[in-house]
């Protein structure tokens, strides 16, 4: 029986009396590779922020590695890539290496020593060697995104949460990034949640689909989704076909 990574029970979130998530239930097991999709404002980013304890739920509960926020543990096992525009100040005077090393903070706080080898590995992996001493604001959008992905992966996490990771990547880098995720999931049993707007392409990469629209409309394998008459009614057969044809 795979280990439980995330458990959500009757989870609801409200901002200014506006319901953002309502009665969300799901369970994520170790080794799942989930494509989290849904329309704008459906609560995708809110859900992952709840998982990480960044947003408090108004009702119900959510636990990560068997602990509910704020007492969450095993932070060093998580790799997180937030949506870039939410935090990014391009004039911040910081180098590529400084940004990537932030990904090791949870490791350092849990007492694990780091000698910079991990940082070197991801710098190599994401082809950032020539850019390591450049300021983050001097890079192109795609290069910046590679740096933030490297930051999420530097601590060799067991659970990866990626909020729209490929938005600024060119097709070649995008493909090799998805190959890397596939390899991490298959060979190292890394659990992945991939938030994306690419509903047509998500079946190519992920093994499970979570469709969210304030509540969970669908959560399960792609085969189940493609054969579901309910989903055909909900999305229309044409949309269901678009999601399924690349799977």
């Amino acid at each position, binding site marked *: 029986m795979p280990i439980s990574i995330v458990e959500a029970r009757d989870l609801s979130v409200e901002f200014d009396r506006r319901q953002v998530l309502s009665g969300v239930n799901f369970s994520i097991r170790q080794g799942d590779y989930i494509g989290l999709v849904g329309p704008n404002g459906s609560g995708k980013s809110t859900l992952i922020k709840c998982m990480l304890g960044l947003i408090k739920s108004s009702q119900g509960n959510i636990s990560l590695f068997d602990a509910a926020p704020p007492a969450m543990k095993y932070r060093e096992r998580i790799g997180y890539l*937030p949506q870039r525009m939410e935090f990014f100040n391009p004039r911040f*005077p910081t180098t590529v290496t*400084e940004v990537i090393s*932030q990904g090791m903070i*949870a490791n350092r706080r849990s007492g694990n020593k780091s000698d910079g080898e991990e940082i070197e590995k991801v710098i190599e992996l994401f082809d950032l060697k020539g850019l390591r001493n450049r300021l983050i604001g001097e890079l192109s959008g795609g290069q910046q995104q590679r740096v933030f992905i490297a930051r999420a992966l530097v601590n060799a996490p067991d659970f990866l949460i990626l909020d729209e990771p490929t938005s600024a990547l060119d097709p070649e880098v995008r493909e090799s990034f998805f190959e890397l995720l596939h390899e991490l999931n298959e060979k190292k049993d890394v659990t992945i949640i991939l938030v994306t707007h690419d509903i047509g392409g998500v079946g190519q990469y992920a093994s499970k689909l979570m469709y969210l629209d304030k509540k969970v409309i669908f959560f399960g394998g792609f085969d189940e989704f493609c054969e579901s008459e309910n989903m055909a009614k909900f999305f229309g057969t044409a949309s269901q076909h678009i999601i399924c044809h690349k799977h």
Partner: protein
Amino acid sequence: MALLRSILSVISTDARGCLLDFIEFLDYGFIQRALIAGSLISVLCAVLGVILVLRRLSMIGDGLSHVTFGAVALAMALNFYPLAVSLPIVVVSSFAILKIMEKARVFGDAAIAVVSSIGIAVGILLASIAGGFNVDLFSYLFGNILSISTLEVAAAVVISLSVLAAIYFFFDEIFSITFDEDFARASGIPVNRINAVLMVLTAVTVVLTMKVVGIMLTSALLVLPAVTAFQNARGFRNAIIIASISSLLSLVAGVFISFALNLPAGATIVMVNVFLLCGSFLFRYFFNTHAAE
């Protein structure tokens, strides 16, 4: 001193005269006190300034110094020691700014403006009730680093070294919060607690700085070295080092120039800071240290 005097024996007459003036200048007790306390406070301001400017809280020094004005006016009306009254009031006000940002859902600049206007209004009212602006209140408004007492030097040394040590030990956490607060929270950093500590450190620094450059120019010592550093810094750590060196140079040069030319010390220190900022900007402009811009 002995080292300086031995250097003098091998250099030209003009330079020797200038250095002799400088050595004599260092012999004064009030200059020594000004340089010891001022140097530590200037480095402290530079380090905190880099963090505050990057967090878009550049005006917090200005806001809290206005509160300091109100607190000093209150202390004088009650005949208490101004530093002892200012410190708790400014610390509470810094928390008020943090809470207004969280609860009233406004950006830092608006929260600072609210607290700042209360501080200045209370100060004017108290000064008026106490019979107008007296000489003492003016001395706090414009500062006088040359009149710093031994007790104030001791307070500056203890507080500055403690604050700098706290920043050194929590450097990674502070950097992470400054760059990306959500990522820092997700990494398990106690963001709210560190934010609160940073606010207290800023409040303490503002109160200490009032003696160096005065209430009116406190925010200059927080903001100018940081902006100077950002022109050419190649990294966060690098920005903090450049800001500290720039701030320290301005302080020493400012004290020396103000004494030599009989100018007000606070304003002179600030103008040296402005001069270094212009130099740093021109260096970036001509040598294009930020390649992408």
